[in-house]
């Protein structure tokens, strides 16, 4: 029966998601009417989060399955454009939605390397990996490594790298869902984290990849609407231009003018003053648009993000779900197109948000106003209570100076609608969008880890005779355990959202980039080489990170955000050296690589394996 519904479902996708989008827009209008009728801000926030999460849960429930290829690769029938949307949601996490514009807001040009890196990586995905791994027909990334190189050791090494990278990433996403749920529902962060976890699990447990695919498409629609509406609205309200992306040149120039007027970089806060600022908040200390990073600092960060993109298993496995190699390739283009829509808007949001705060000519500007006036603002009090905003009259002149304003990076996107004086319905919408972004990525990540453990570790190594039903139960139990572990660590708040995400990219790049790429492009690569590449790469990257974190000086200007450069270089060298010192792969493996390089014909691994 499910099969019949599924067939119909695939044909009707544009219609189904069209109705869904219309319904969501209708819901926004309904909320706007309710707000003008006097519905409280708190209730609007709750409605937005509850309504959207409820829909994802419903989709997750309707997509439940008892079939292996549906659970692991959504039955390999996700159409090209829809897979692009699902990948975009899978990819754009709480870091992209909530934290990235904040990073750009505070660090300017130096952090815009993230925009270049997180998009440029898709060129590598499309040209080096995705079509070939699709042709391979694997369920998971370690499945490719294990079959291409042969042997359990290679498979286990890949599982280790995957788990380290994805787990680092998923704690950040659960942190983001917790932050949003705690602000929108007004509950403590420690509890909100587990509410976020519960919603993530509902979406993925019953239907695996199939359920995650269709919820991710729904989440993409919510998050892109939630990101674009405020950008366009603020821009129009401010009179900056009806299409901000093409029209903010004057605003960018105006910020630079205000920066020098307010003494950016010349007025420094004393250490004693800074000690009174709550932990995790940052001041505006870097120029907005001018080049404020050395070429190497910019390029090294971009390179790490690009190589990391091509090595992150939760992204790669999305391309296993397309019907053909050709559609896997095109699907990468669509993914990047949908990502581009949000990424090209992030700097515009940062610009508009900063200008509405800084410009004394605007009604919303607070710099230069008296401290007591700012402290009396409603939105200031809300965000100050959430420990995400802080002002203090360090120099005692009674007015707020630029160096006396502090905000949490993750608050920039969430608080901007309020700062710019938009109705609360937009804040509720943004909260729902941030929740969608963080949940969709967490779904993909938790599934990637659980699938690797259940398929590669349990089925391929521990119990190869296990029946389908048992394999699916193990997969679900693991999903639950991993999600719970992620939430427990997220509740400790060890590292900020953006920082953990950048680390995840470095881990993935250190251990997996070269073993994956050379597996397709270098026939001579063999199992001992790949194992050396994965384990030494991961170990050296991690060692470098720990060294720099504990006050080590580092070398070549490689920081704790770019340690993947060290890890992947060690990985490349050790993989090539060990491969050449040991026996060439046998004829069967060489034939397998040949087979992977042409799109037509059967996949290397069978439909069910």
């Amino acid at each position: 029966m499910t099969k019949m519904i599924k067939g119909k479902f695939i044909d009707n996708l544009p219609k189904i998601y069209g109705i869904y989008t219309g319904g969501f827009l209708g819901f926004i209008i309904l909320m706007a009417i309710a707000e003008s009728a006097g519905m409280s801000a708190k209730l609007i926030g709750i409605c937005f989060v509850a309504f959207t999460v409820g829909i994802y849960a419903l989709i997750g429930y309707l997509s439940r399955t008892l079939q292996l290829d549906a659970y692991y690769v959504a039955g390999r029938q996700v159409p090209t454009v829809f897979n692009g949307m699902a990948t975009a949601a899978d990819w754009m996490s709480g870091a992209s939605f909530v934290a990235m514009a904040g990073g750009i807001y505070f660090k300017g040009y130096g952090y815009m390397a993230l925009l270049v890196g997180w998009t440029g990586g898709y060129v590598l995905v499309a040209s080096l990996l995705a079509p070939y791994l699709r042709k391979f027909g694997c369920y998971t990334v370690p499945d490719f490594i294990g079959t291409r190189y042969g042997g359990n050791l290679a498979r286990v090494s890949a599982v280790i790298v995957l788990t380290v990278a994805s787990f680092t990433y998923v704690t950040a996403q659960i942190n983001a869902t917790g932050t949003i749920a705690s602000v929108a529902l007004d509950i403590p962060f420690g509890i909100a984290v587990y509410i976020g976890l519960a919603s993530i699990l509902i979406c993925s447990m019953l239907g695996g990849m199939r359920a995650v695919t269709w919820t991710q498409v729904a989440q993409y629609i919510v998050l892109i609407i939630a990101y674009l509406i405020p950008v366009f609205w603020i821009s129009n309200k401010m009179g900056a231009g009806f299409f901000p992306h093409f029209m903010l040149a004057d605003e960018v120039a105006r910020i630079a003018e205000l920066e020098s007027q307010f003494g950016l970089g010349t007025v420094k806060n004393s250490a004693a003053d800074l000690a009174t600022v709550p932990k995790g908040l940052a001041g505006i200390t870097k120029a907005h648009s001018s080049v404020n990073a050395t070429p190497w600092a910019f390029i090294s960060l971009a390179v790490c993000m690009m190589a990391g993109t091509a090595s992150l298993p939760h992204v790669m496995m999305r391309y296993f779900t397309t019907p053909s190699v050709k559609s896997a390739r095109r699907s990468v283009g669509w993914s990047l197109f949908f990502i581009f829509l949000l990424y090209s808007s992030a700097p515009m949001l940062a610009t508009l948000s900063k200008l509405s705060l800084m410009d004394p000519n605007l009604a919303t500007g607070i710099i230069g106003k008296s401290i007591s006036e700012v402290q009396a603002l409603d939105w200031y009090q809300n965000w100050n209570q959430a420990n995400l905003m802080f002002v203090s009259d360090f120099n005692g002149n009674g007015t707020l100076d630029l160096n006396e304003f502090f905000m949490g990076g993750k608050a920039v996107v969430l608080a901007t609608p309020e700062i710019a004086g938009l109705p609360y319905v937009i804040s509720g919408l943004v909260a729902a969008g941030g929740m969608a972004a963080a949940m969709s990525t967490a779904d993909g990540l938790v599934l990637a880890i659980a699938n690797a453990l259940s398929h590669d570790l349990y089925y391929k190594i521990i119990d190869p005779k296990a029946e389908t039903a048992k394999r699916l139960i193990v997969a679900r139990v693991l999903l639950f355990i991993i999600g719970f572990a992620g939430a427990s660590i997220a509740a400790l708040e060890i590292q900020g959202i953006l920082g953990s995400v950048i680390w995840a990219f470095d881990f993935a790049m250190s251990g997996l980039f070269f073993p994956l790429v050379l597996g397709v492009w270098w026939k001579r690569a063999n199992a001992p080489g790949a194992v050396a590449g994965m384990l030494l790469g991961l170990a050296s990257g991690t060692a470098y990170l720990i060294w720099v974190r504990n006050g080590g000086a580092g070398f070549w200007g490689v920081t704790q955000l770019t340690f993947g450069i060290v890890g992947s270089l060690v990985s490349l060298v050790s993989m090539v050296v060990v491969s050449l010192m040991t026996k060439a792969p046998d004829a069967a493996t060489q034939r397998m690589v040949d087979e992977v390089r042409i799109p037509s014909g059967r996949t290397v691994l069978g439909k069910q394996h």
Partner: protein
Amino acid sequence: MSKQAKHWEKTRGLLFVTLAIWFVFSIGIFFFGAEMEASSFRPLGYPLSYYMTCQGSLGIFVILIFWFANRQEKIDEEFGYTEREDD
């Protein structure tokens, strides 16, 4: 040279061209951040360095992937390696 070897040679050629374009817009131009900022060429009025990081390079990557996919499909077709529709 076998048919498959020729197909792979062409595929590799396309890869090198694609990666060369990718390199220029993801790494190459950012060696010259300061020069781009000072440039009098300002797309839509933005400083060139700012424009490339927030729209220019990103848009080029999108176009590059679709261009690459089209070229690769042509190569596959030429050698008869296109997948059947029902595969």
